[in-house]
């Protein structure tokens, strides 16, 4: 099973990343290299998956209200704002 250029493009669409043909070819090679190694070394392992490296449990805070950022600071890094909001071009549904 080998990753194709087309598949890389589809992955790019999933994470909103426009890719050139050249990039797609290079990334397909990269993935095939890494996945081959993974196939060789990881297949057949039966250990329990280790989901959390932290041994801590039940870390929670009390439901207290604090002071939010001032609105100017909220918006300070935005490329475009309007009426106190972040402005973006129109949102098309897929």
């Amino acid at each position, binding site marked *: 099973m080998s990753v194709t250029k087309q598949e890389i493009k589809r992955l790019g669409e999933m994470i909103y990343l426009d890719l050139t043909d050249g990039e797609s070819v290079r990334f397909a090679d990269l993935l095939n290299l890494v996945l081959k190694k993974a196939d060789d070394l990881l297949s057949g392992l039966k250990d329990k998956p280790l989901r959390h490296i932290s041994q801590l449990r039940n870390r929670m805070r009390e*439901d207290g209200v*604090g002071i939010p950022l001032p609105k100017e600071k*909220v918006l300070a890094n935005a490329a475009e704002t309007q009426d106190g*909001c972040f402005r973006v*071009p*129109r949102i098309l549904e897929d």
Partner: protein
Amino acid sequence: MHDFEAVIGLEIHVELSTASKIFCSCPTTFGAEVNTQCCPVCLGLPGSLPAMNRKAVEYTVKTGLALNCRIAQHTWFDRKNYFYPDLPKAYQVSQQDAPLCTGGCLEIPMGEKGTKKVGINRVHLEEEVGKSLHAGETIIDAVYSLLDYNRAGIPLIEIVTEPDIRSAEEAQVFLESLRNIVRYIEVSDCKMQEGSLRCDANISLRPKGSTVFGTKTEIKNLNSFRAVRRALEYEIKRQAGVLKDGLAVEAETRHWDEQKGITIAMRSKEHASYYRCFADPNLVPLDLAAEWIGQMEAELPELPGARRQRFIDGYGLPEYDAQVLTSSKEMADFFEEVVKGYNDPKTVSNWIMTDILRHVKDQDEETEGIPLAPASLVELLQLIEQGTINRNQAKEIVLPEMFEDGKSPRQIVKEKGLEQISDTSQLEGVIASVLEANPDVVQDYLGGREKVMGFLVGQVLKETKGKANPRLVNEMIREKLKQ
């Protein structure tokens, strides 16, 4: 329509009424100025990390317990990855793989048909997204959108039912019952018009008697109970039409258009994104001790079902009354408060179910509270019992005033001069002159036509502008004519 059976499952999102957001201390107040309830965490700024709100976990567990779910002893939070401008981190922290609550059920009242059990697949905790405001009529023709992240990070629970619902009516009743429970346990205000309760529905049809599922559609934008019912009624008809024409129902998401009263296809389900879920390393797992879960259970208030039964057994109310009175926590609380001061449950129930509910219904659909102090209804009932006013005056004059400006019944009676004349010396003169003026009627009465008594009492009331206590007048006339 008779050939098909509808198979419906609901997916309900409820915003929890914590004071602060799920992962940060930003307030959750509805309607605040845009982007004023935000911080690095809920804006998903680089480097920020989540800190779990204990109350959000407690509220989720309580909801699960109220819906008879099993509570997971070991659970964690996943990242559900997708892109949308209202989603600050490009992932929603949710619980794909290990929901806090699973396998519950809710019994809903179906009138004469008794009750029906609807399975609850899961209740899990996740975070709310921000809000996009579209410039333009609809999302389609907007040229730009504005993002407000005040709402981003409010704790949200997702409740998913089993596909046990069989009609639009059942769906509506289920949703009402669910909302009632969630309000009973006080974990959310469930205001559909403010978006703190939202519902999506999955629906398919199958030939009656079949056990296989048909192809389902998902309906979004159901913003009221009425919308849920209407949209499902429409969709059942639409799918039945498609199937009767020998065509296949498309697996798709459809949008309910409230104005037009139709559902519209949005996008095909085949393209639905896979969310690439995995455990969020920034939140440590929860190991919930059975003891702690027991404590949550102990903190639950009496739930609607139990309360309904208690109203029947304890107050001797008919089942119908008990059902109506417990259909909202506020109303049931109101009833019990009034009964404490005026111990005639059936009379109190009658007042609430007829006159008071009529006034409440004239108001907003979602106002659950009865805008009266229980003590003032007690006072009103006592005024009637004591003969200070009669039932008609109470209903037609005093009660509307009570709703209008919140004055006490006694004060209204006084201001309107409604006190009945129960003083015999005041009435004696009036009665004498009425009898004098109607000698024929008096003769009829004495001749055995007792019915004319009504006329005589009426005349006295007329003379006293309705203030005379009719029962007293009746007695006095009777007494007088005996002589």
